[in-house]
């Protein structure tokens, strides 16, 4: 049938020849020219390109990352992500890394944990590193896997439920070592050779690596939050020199990771007295975003009680990180958007704010809160948004 099919094509081509020559005589309008089948080329990366991870919870072996251009409102392409993936970008933004798991028979059979590297200029998978079957299978955050500041090492979180992490070589594409974290979880890279993990006690464990990527030393910090009274979301918000950890009750714990040991700034609250009595809280999956140059924090906020920490934000609140003053509240209902589950902001001088709801992606002017665009059905469950 391959033949019959191709006969068709040839016949078509010959007909078109005939048709064209007749038309050359008969004059306008001439037929549309034949087209060439090609593969689209990625446009140059800009500050308004976002990577939206669709965890596809209802078809969980089929997670994917959608690349979206918030200037043209076009989808640029897709990176497949398998089952309960971790996702991150290289410091230079040129490479996407997906940590995921495949089963030889879809949901059954031999399990393969792997980190896959994709060239963001071609969206082709270029390399992979096969892991021991220990990868942390959980909601995606920045801390599922991440590069060292100099891109020399790549770290991936393991939970079996014993907690540890893998040190990978993203140049030789090999596994260097596994380092036990004494029950502390996730990987928070800092500097060229430090990895911190969050402990059940509310402290941080920081492991320092030697030049080969093996453990050189480790140190526990004091506890910087109370996991019983007011736990912080495990998903930290990247800021200059570190991460801000928001608590269920709206306390902001800024941690400076630029030194050998994490330094904890004195916590402050997102909430005034009136906000507290109205039961405002942060909530969602990706619960904050910071524009480093403007030094502004964006948080999806909702009204609710204990147990509502995954509820989407009915409003986005904007704070000045230096003064801790709230600069704005942007209600989502006014924009006909449901609760905001994930939030991100571009780092350029004309910053855009990205807010993912159940399925859609809202694009806002991050300075004014003006809604620019709503991309419908951005994903089945879009739970993590990254920008270069």
């Amino acid at each position, binding site marked *: 049938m391959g033949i019959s099919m191709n006969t068709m094509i040839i016949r078509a081509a010959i007909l078109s020849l005939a048709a064209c020559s007749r038309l050359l005589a008969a004059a306008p309008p001439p037929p549309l020219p034949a087209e060439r089948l090609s593969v689209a080329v990625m446009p140059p990366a800009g500050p308004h390109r976002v990577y939206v991870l669709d965890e596809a919870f209802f078809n969980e072996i089929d997670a994917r990352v959608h690349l979206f251009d918030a200037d043209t409102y076009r989808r640029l392409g897709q990176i497949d992500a398998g089952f309960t993936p971790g996702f991150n970008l290289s410091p230079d933004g040129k490479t996407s890394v997906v940590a995921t798991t495949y089963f030889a028979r879809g*949901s059954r059979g031999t399990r393969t944990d792997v980190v896959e590297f994709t060239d963001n200029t071609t969206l082709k998978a270029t390399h992979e590193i096969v892991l021991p079957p220990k990868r942390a*299978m959980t909601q995606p955050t920045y801390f599922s896997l991440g590069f060292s500041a100099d891109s020399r090492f790549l770290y991936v979180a393991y*939970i*079996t439920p014993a907690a540890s992490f893998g040190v990978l070589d993203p140049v030789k594409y090999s596994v260097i070592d596994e380092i036990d974290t004494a029950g502390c979880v996730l990987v928070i890279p800092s500097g060229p050779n430090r990895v911190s993990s*969050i402990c059940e006690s509310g402290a941080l464990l920081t492991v320092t690596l030697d030049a080969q990527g093996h453990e050189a030393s480790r140190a526990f910090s004091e506890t910087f939050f109370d996991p019983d009274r007011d*736990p912080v979301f*495990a998903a930290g918000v990247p800021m200059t020199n570190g991460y801000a950890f928001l608590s269920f009750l709206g306390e902001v714990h800024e941690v400076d990771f630029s030194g050998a040991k994490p330094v904890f700034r004195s916590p402050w609250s997102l909430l005034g007295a009136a906000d507290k009595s109205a*039961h405002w809280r942060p909530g969602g999956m990706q619960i904050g975003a910071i524009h480093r140059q403007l030094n502004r924090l964006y948080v999806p906020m909702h009204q*609710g*009680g204990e147990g509502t920490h995954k509820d989407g934000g009915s409003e986005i609140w904007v704070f000045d990180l230096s003064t801790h003053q709230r600069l704005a509240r942007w209600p989502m209902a006014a924009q006909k958007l449901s609760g905001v589950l994930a939030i991100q902001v571009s780092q350029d001088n004309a910053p855009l704010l990205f807010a993912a709801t159940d399925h859609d992606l809202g694009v806002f002017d991050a300075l004014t809160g003006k809604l620019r665009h709503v991309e419908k059905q951005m994903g089945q469950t879009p739970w993590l948004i990254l920008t270069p």
Partner: protein
Amino acid sequence: MRSIDRLFEKSSRALAQRTSRRSLLGMLGQVLTGAALIPLLPIDRSARAADAPPTKPKAAKTATDDPQSCDYWKYCAVDGFLCACCGGSSNSCPPGTTPSPITWIGTCHNPGDDRDYIVSYNDCCGKVSCGNCECNRNEREKPMYRPSRNNDLNWCMANADSNYHCSVSVILGPAEK
């Protein structure tokens, strides 16, 4: 690690079961009466709902006795698909799936008898997402650094076929008042 988990988990569950059998032997009739009474207390429950403290609007409002509803009292920290909608029940995995030997623990309030219960949430594993009756409740749920109280982790992680299918909620016993 995994074998230890299984050992601990089995023995503790066995303990819980001895408990239940004893109470059953002691007062089967009363248990049945009690059970039969629960559906007859809608006013009682709605009243309690009205009185609910403002910091817990969900807990009371959503308490029901339908295992196929996310509002079922026992599901107060389920984040996933209800096995009762996937061929299982509130405490049994669907045919062909395998229960996770490891688990996370919650405390839920039963408006039927006004008691708090310790429940064990187990995932059922080895088939792709059931996709039916998604339920996302997080009462007393804690982030991943406190795994025994976390529902974001795939608790099928230690199963031979570690793909997540759905979640059940199993009563271990009443919580201390």
